[in-house]
Every structure is written in C-alpha cells, then in structure tokens.
C-alpha cells in the first residue's frame, strides 16, 4: 500500500493482515503451461513485411497505371489507349506519367509510406 493511501492505524493493521494473507498465495505449477497452450499463433513478422511490401507495390502500381492511362488519354486526341507492349507508347506514357501526373505519383508514394509507417508502428 502506498504512503498516500495510509490514513490511520486501522488501515495499517488491515493492510498488514491482507498482505500477510496475500503472501501465502502460491502459484499453481501448471498455470503457465496452461496459458502457453492457449496462446494464439501470432502472424510472423517476415510474413507481415512481405504483405507490407506487396501492398505498397500494388498501391504504387495502381496509381502508376491510373496515371499512365490518364496521360495517354490526354495525349491522344482520339482517346485510344495504346497497348502496353508498344514500347514507344510505354516510354511516352512513362514520360507522360512523370511530367503530367506528379500529383498521382506523390499521392501513391505518400500512401505507401503511410502504410509502411502504420505497419511498422511508427505512427
């Protein structure tokens, strides 16, 4: 019992009796074993990191794809989106992505960093 709680002699006597009784309490030998057998499996950290990386890449990929598609749509007046195996178009798209959609890039990056920070318990 902390000093601030002690009010009078009766309290001290009561405290003494109760603590004497508490000192007699004994641990059950198999208690810890029983608890350990009931513990759930915790998700491994390597698994969590893998999930985190995949999530981040997927998120960046989504934003990049959206940005590329958007830049292509604005680049070609007829609105035809070039196929991704067309290297020229891809290059143009990437250039368009970097130049035309920096906001999308920043949003994707910030989101990925936010997810990483959350999972790493930094925020």
């Amino acid at each position, binding site marked *: 019992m*902390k000093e*601030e709680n002690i009010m009078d002699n009766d309290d001290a006597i009561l405290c003494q009796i109760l*603590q004497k009784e508490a000192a007699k309490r004994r641990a059950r030998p198999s*208690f810890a074993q029983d608890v350990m057998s009931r*513990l*759930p499996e915790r998700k491994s950290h390597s698994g969590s990191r893998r999930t985190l990386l995949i999530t981040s890449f997927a998120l960046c990929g989504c934003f990049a794809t959206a940005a590329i598609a958007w830049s292509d749509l604005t680049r070609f007046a007829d609105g035809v989106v070039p196929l991704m195996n067309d290297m020229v178009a891809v290059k143009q798209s990437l250039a368009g992505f970097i130049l035309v959609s920096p906001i999308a890039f920043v949003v994707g990056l910030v989101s990925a960093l936010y997810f990483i920070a959350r999972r790493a318990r930094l925020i």
Partner: protein
Amino acid sequence: METPDFILIARVLADDDRQAFAELVRRHEVMLCGFLTRLTNDSFLADDLAQETFVEAYRNLGKFSGKSTFSTWLLGVGYNLFRQYKRRKPTPETATDMPDTEDEEADSASRGTEVDVQAAIAKLGEDQRAAIELCFVQGLSHEEAANVLHCPLGTLKTNILRAKEKLKTHLAAYALHS
C-alpha cells in the same frame, strides 16, 4: 538479475518470444489470480479468468503503452474480463471459497483474526472488494486503482471508506462472538 518486464514485452513484440511471455506469466500469475479470486470468491473461476486474461494480454500486448506498470495494465485487462463474465452470467454473489457465516460465527475463536478478515471481506460488495484488494494488497495508489476499475477517483475513495466501515462492523461482531 531479473530481466525487467518491459524488456520481456519488447522481446514478445519483436520476435514473438514465447519464453519471455511465459516468464511474464510466472511473474504475475499469483498477483492476478489473487485479485480475481477476491473478486469472484471462486478460485477455479479465478484461475480460468486469469488464463483468459493472459491470452487477451498476449493478443493486445501492442496496445500496452507503458504509461502504467505491466502488472497494473494486466489487472485492468483482468477486471474487464471479469465484468464481461458477469454480464454474460449474472449470478448472485456467493462466497464459495470463504467460510459460511454460521460456521465462521461458531468457529471464529479458533480461526483467528485473518480468517475473520477474509470472511468479512467476502461479504463486501464487488466494487468494494476490488478497491480494497487493489489499494491494500496490490499496493496501487488511488489513482492507479481508479484507472484499473474505470471509475472516478471519488467513487473509489468512497468505496474504500464504506468497505472499511463495513469491515469494522463485521469484525466487531466477530470479536463479540469470540
């Protein structure tokens, strides 16, 4: 030298070190079982609730902020589980592990003051028992005990005061019988 609790907790969180968690269980089981036995008046139920408390603590160890000691946090988890149990199975308070009133009155002379006190505490209300146990046995400050029991500081102090008044009355009766 004994490894501090916070290092064991860090090991559990970082590497899922089950040996470290087992050590935490061994360190705090007596304290937690004692508290829950006092609340339930049933050592078997208290044992089961204590196990559940440790499992719950393991699940939510990441939420332990370190503002209080681990044992205080654990008592809070245990008390929450006890309240959940009471909501699920609202039963009248019984003193199964404590001596019956008639027996205790008849044999109080031979049992001594400690048994009298235990029996008197068993007659207190649940909140009062919890308050007495936390402040007088576990050695928590009033603020810490109020946090564990999720009640205002004034309520806790009132509970302690009333508990002490009741104890005095009960113990005076025992003294007369003995």
